[in-house]
């Protein structure tokens, strides 16, 4: 049984959302400074066209009026005619009706491939419909790089990594300089375990030197492959200067720099960079900030950050997880899965939650789904082995553990603990104790006492469940370790399993975080201003002048 993968090793690797979602974010927007739009419409011509429509009616004349809607300065008049056309019952084509309704609602005409379905993981029909839509676009126009990215995501989610790789390659050939394509390709290569290839792609690309989004990806990928980053210095200069790009464009770069500075031990610098990252964070940056909240010791409140957290399923999930709100965590994990169905991380968490709840049918469903996307996801395999053991299928569990060992050695303590459980089930208690203790020792050697405490919890509860003669001692040990090393995982588990009478959960106490802004009230002028900057721990939120 593993802990959640969420609580370790998170980097600012680009997110791979459905294309239409990404295109709606600042990540897809231009780096140039926005200019005030100029009035471009021909007001006189619009008046003549409206007069023609009033005189003649007909869809042709109405279409000529609606054509002016592309000029924002004429929108008001065009919308008035559109409303009149609908209300008056005059001739109007089906497409005109649809365009008018979306025009007036301010929405887009085309829904994103994944937006019109909820929880498609449970609705194969809806998922197939979404795939059909992407395929229809490609059938009409196969040189459409963004549609290839969506197709690749569906293929990766179905575990067809080789076909997904081909789709990614096609997208790269069609638009080798497109930022979304480059970042998605890098994310995909990480997904299939080719991290070096991902790093090479971004690091060697000509656009990276001038694009903060690609620079951020390069720094995060360099960290992943444990290589020196080619752009960290340049990135740091850009972040320090802070004037070259809009805050939204610098968010991921600042976050990546902050993570590196934190790793290097420069907490003060790291906090400053993180503050830049949090000026206008995207969903990836805010999730990273929630993930590293304790390390940075920064408060993530205030209207801007609150809104950013609400827009990120991953950030919300991390928050719910940290506060032990299992239901909220499950909802957000499912939404995150909707966004990145190829990723094993939300699946891992959903499986864990269901295992904690002892809903083994649901846990099995999620694990099967996750393993379909990534048959070699070692943590999913270990959890499946645990599940099989709990269901009494010990041979199957053993086979899975053999596979997990072959794939990844670093999970050995988890593998040993699962074998310990299997011994308890077979009533081979002393052998089971030996395996559990070996697992705990290995966690201790790896300087991870929280996982050691987590492991002792499972040992204690399973000892009690399977009639271990020394169960009481195990429970006492677990209580002692959890008191010293409490974690969100142990608390959620105890809460969901109603095992609080055996082992006491312990509240996790965080030190007071520092605020990123201070409100300054000038009594003389009656003006309230916001002062940006990392505050001292005891700084008041509001000061008077």
């Amino acid at each position, binding site marked *: 049984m593993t802990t959640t993968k969420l609580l370790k090793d998170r980097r600012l690797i680009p997110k791979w959302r459905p294309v239409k979602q990404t*295109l709606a974010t600042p990540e897809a*927007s*231009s780096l140039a400074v926005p200019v005030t739009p100029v009035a471009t419409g021909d007001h006189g011509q619009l008046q003549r066209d409206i007069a023609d429509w009033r005189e003649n009616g*007909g*869809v042709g004349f109405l*279409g000529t009026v609606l054509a002016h809607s592309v000029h924002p300065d004429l929108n008001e008049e065009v919308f008035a005619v559109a409303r009149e056309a609908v209300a008056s019952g005059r*001739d109007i084509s089906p497409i005109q009706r649809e365009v008018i309704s979306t025009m007036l609602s301010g929405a887009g005409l085309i829904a994103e491939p994944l937006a019109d379905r909820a929880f498609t993981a449970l609705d194969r029909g809806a998922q197939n419909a979404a795939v059909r839509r992407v395929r229809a*676009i490609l059938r*009409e126009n196969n040189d459409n790089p963004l549609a290839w990215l969506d197709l690749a995501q569906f293929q990766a989610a179905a575990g067809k990594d080789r076909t997904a790789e081909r789709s990614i390659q096609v997208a790269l050939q069609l638009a080798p*300089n497109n930022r979304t394509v480059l970042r998605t390709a890098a994310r995909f290569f990480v997904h299939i375990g080719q991290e070096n290839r991902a790093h090479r792609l971004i690091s060697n690309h000509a656009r990276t030197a001038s694009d903060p989004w690609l620079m951020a990806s390069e720094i995060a990928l360099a960290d992943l492959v444990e290589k020196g980053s080619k752009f960290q210095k340049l990135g740091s200069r850009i972040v320090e200067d802070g004037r070259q790009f809009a805050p939204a464009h610098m968010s991921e770069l600042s976050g990546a720099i902050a993570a590196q500075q934190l790793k290097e031990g420069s907490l003060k610098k790291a906090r400053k960079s993180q503050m830049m990252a949090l000026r206008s964070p995207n969903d990836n940056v805010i999730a990273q900030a929630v993930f590293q909240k304790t390390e940075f010791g920064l408060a993530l409140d205030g209207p801007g950050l609150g809104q950013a957290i609400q827009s990120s399923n991953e950030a919300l999930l991390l928050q719910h997880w940290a506060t032990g709100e299992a239901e909220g965590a499950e909802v957000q994990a499912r939404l995150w899965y909707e966004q990145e169905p190829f990723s094993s991380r939300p699946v891992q968490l959903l499986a864990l939650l269901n295992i904690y709840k002892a809903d083994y049918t649901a846990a099995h469903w999620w694990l099967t789904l996750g393993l379909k996307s990534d048959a070699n996801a070692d943590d999913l395999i270990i959890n499946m082995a645990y599940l099989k053991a709990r269901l009494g299928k010990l041979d199957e569990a053993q086979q899975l553990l053999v596979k997990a060992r072959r794939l990844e050695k670093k999970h050995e303590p988890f593998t040993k603990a699962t074998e310990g459980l299997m011994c308890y089930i077979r009533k081979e208690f002393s052998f089971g104790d030996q395996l559990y203790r070996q697992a705990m020792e290995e966690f201790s050697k790896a300087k991870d006492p929280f996982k050691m405490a987590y492991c002792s919890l499972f040992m204690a509860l399973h000892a009690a469940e399977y009639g271990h003669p020394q169960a009481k001692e195990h429970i006492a040990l677990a209580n002692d370790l959890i008191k010293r090393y409490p974690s969100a995982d142990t608390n959620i588990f105890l809460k969901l399993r109603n095992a609080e009478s055996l082992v006491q959960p312990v509240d996790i106490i965080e030190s007071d975080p520092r605020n990123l802004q201070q409100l300054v009230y000038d009594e003389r002028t009656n003006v309230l201003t916001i002062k940006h900057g990392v505050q001292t721990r005891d700084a008041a939120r509001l000061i008077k002048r």
Partner: protein
Amino acid sequence: MSSQMIGPSPKDLLQGHVLKSGWVLVKRLARSATSTGSSFGTGYLAERGQEKSFVKAIDFVDALGEPDVLAALRALTTEVEFERDTLKACAEAGLGHVIRYIEHEYVSAPNGDLARQVFCLVMEVGDGDLRKTMEGQTVFRCAWALKVMAEVAKGIYELHKLRIAHQDIKPSNVISVPNSKKTSPFGYDEKILKLSDLGRVTRQGVVGPFDGYVFPGDTNYMPPEHWYPNAFAPGILQSRPWNDGREAADAYMLGSLLIFTLSGMTLQTVVTQCLPLTFRPTVWTGRYDQDLIAALKLAHTEALIKCINGYIYFEVADELKKIALEITHPDPTQRGDRRARREIANEVGMNRISQRLSALYARAQAIEIGQSKK
């Protein structure tokens, strides 16, 4: 132009006047009915015995009221002369899908005031523009839409052959003209669709008044490379080759016309609504690069699927969508017939587009006839 003249303009006072050539200006047309796009003329319906024509009357009074009279006069005369010469060139080449030039003459003012002379351009007259022919329909007949496309494509090709780019193809500049030569069971051949208003054309090798404009036509119908005011460095659009700059714009406007005949919407309107907010012309501040082109490509595909699927016989839908995607490609250097673009000359290939559309029109007509027999 400003209107500093006193009293009505002489070009508006010609109803009932008889030209030297025998044409009687029987009815002054409302400005919108002619909708020529060239804002300086007044339209008249003219008759000579059984013959009918359209007369565009232009005077110099407004120009004489401008602060810089010489410049205004020069601009006006250059535009009028250019349009007349272009129409003449088209008539001499026997273009069958462009409104025919008949003749021109000057009408003198009764009091001999030379400044109040009117220039009259006599042209073939039609029944009305494309918008008029769409009256009473909310869902469009497939064969009719394909006829419009095939004939307008022919018109564009005829112009391109003479190295003329129309630059202002839109519903009001497609005129339905009676055709006595052919008849088909559904009356499709009773009318022929012709391109009108050559007032905004550019000609390769002939200096014209709109050569300096990167896009001289109606901005509601322009191709996407012109939607973004800051997307190109200064001078880039002006220095594009003829095919990528001028002919490719005509190809795009043909695609827009297809969407208009099927849905009553311009392509620009539908595509804009399919675009994510970040890439909309009022929001995007970057260059016309791969980031933007990829988003435009996706939006065009979605718009075309939306407007074509379900409105066209499935037997012709695939090929029509293929043509539509080729002629509305957001990258002007790739816009046009795919085969023609791959060849060494790298042409837009309006001849091939026209042939492909004619074949589709014939097929759609056959389907419609077959359905009626059942």
